[in-house]
């Protein structure tokens, strides 16, 4: 059994938070939940950085308090994280502002619905009929056979079900 120390526990927690946050950003279907997952991944990164400066038995890096000869924990990662926390909240506020604009423009934050409505908008702006799917594109032009199957339908999960969205 590996040594079950404080550093090990915090390391597992930091890596777990970072992984859960990154995974959540990938698998979420809602933009607001992606923002929450981003905040969680950020927390995991902050915890990891502070952990790099931790030293067992060290004292808090405050001059004039406690024994000056005792070994301190490293203050540099703590200062970096102090900045990163504030910047993280700024990033969250910016993302929230963008989400509000997206919601005002499209009325939804669901990624799949947003993709369909943006496709419809692009098609309307270009003056062509929105293509229902990759297999039945606008104007009935058949697409040339895809050279590589992997990228043929990239970014398009299913035929757009939203016929009522078109003007």
């Amino acid at each position: 059994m590996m040594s079950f120390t404080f550093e090990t526990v915090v390391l597992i927690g930091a890596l777990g938070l970072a992984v859960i946050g990154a995974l959540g950003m990938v698998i979420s279907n809602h933009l607001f939940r992606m923002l929450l997952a981003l905040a969680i991944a950020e927390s995991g990164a902050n915890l990891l950085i502070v952990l790099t400066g931790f030293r067992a038995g060290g004292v808090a890096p405050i001059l004039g308090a406690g024994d000056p000869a005792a070994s301190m924990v490293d203050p540099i990662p703590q200062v970096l994280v102090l900045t990163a926390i504030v910047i993280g909240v700024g990033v969250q506020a910016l993302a929230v502002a963008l989400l509000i604009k997206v919601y005002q423009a499209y009325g939804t934050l669901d990624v799949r619905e947003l993709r369909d409505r943006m496709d419809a908008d692009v098609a309307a702006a270009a003056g062509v009929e929105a293509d229902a799917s990759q297999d039945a594109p606008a104007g009935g032009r058949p697409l040339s056979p895809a050279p590589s199957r992997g990228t043929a339908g990239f970014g398009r999960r299913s035929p757009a079900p939203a016929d009522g969205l078109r003007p």
Partner: protein
Amino acid sequence: MITWVALVVVVLMLASAVAVLLLRSFVAAVAASSVVGLGLTVLFVLMRAPDVAMTEAAVGAGLSGVILALALRRLGLWHIEAAAEDRDRA
């Protein structure tokens, strides 16, 4: 001793991080992300970083929770269970 405190806090943080991704209610998800921030505060104190802990509690857990909760109102996602039931009944 300090290891056990850290273990409890880490388990709480990981559980609420998973809850953020799984909860259907967005109000509950924002609250769970604030729980992650508060657990982070405790870990910072245990790692002899009291200044970072203060900032995380005030800014990371407090201000960010307020920003996200206010954004929920603007985004039309502020649905508390009882209020939703009242609207359905009416």
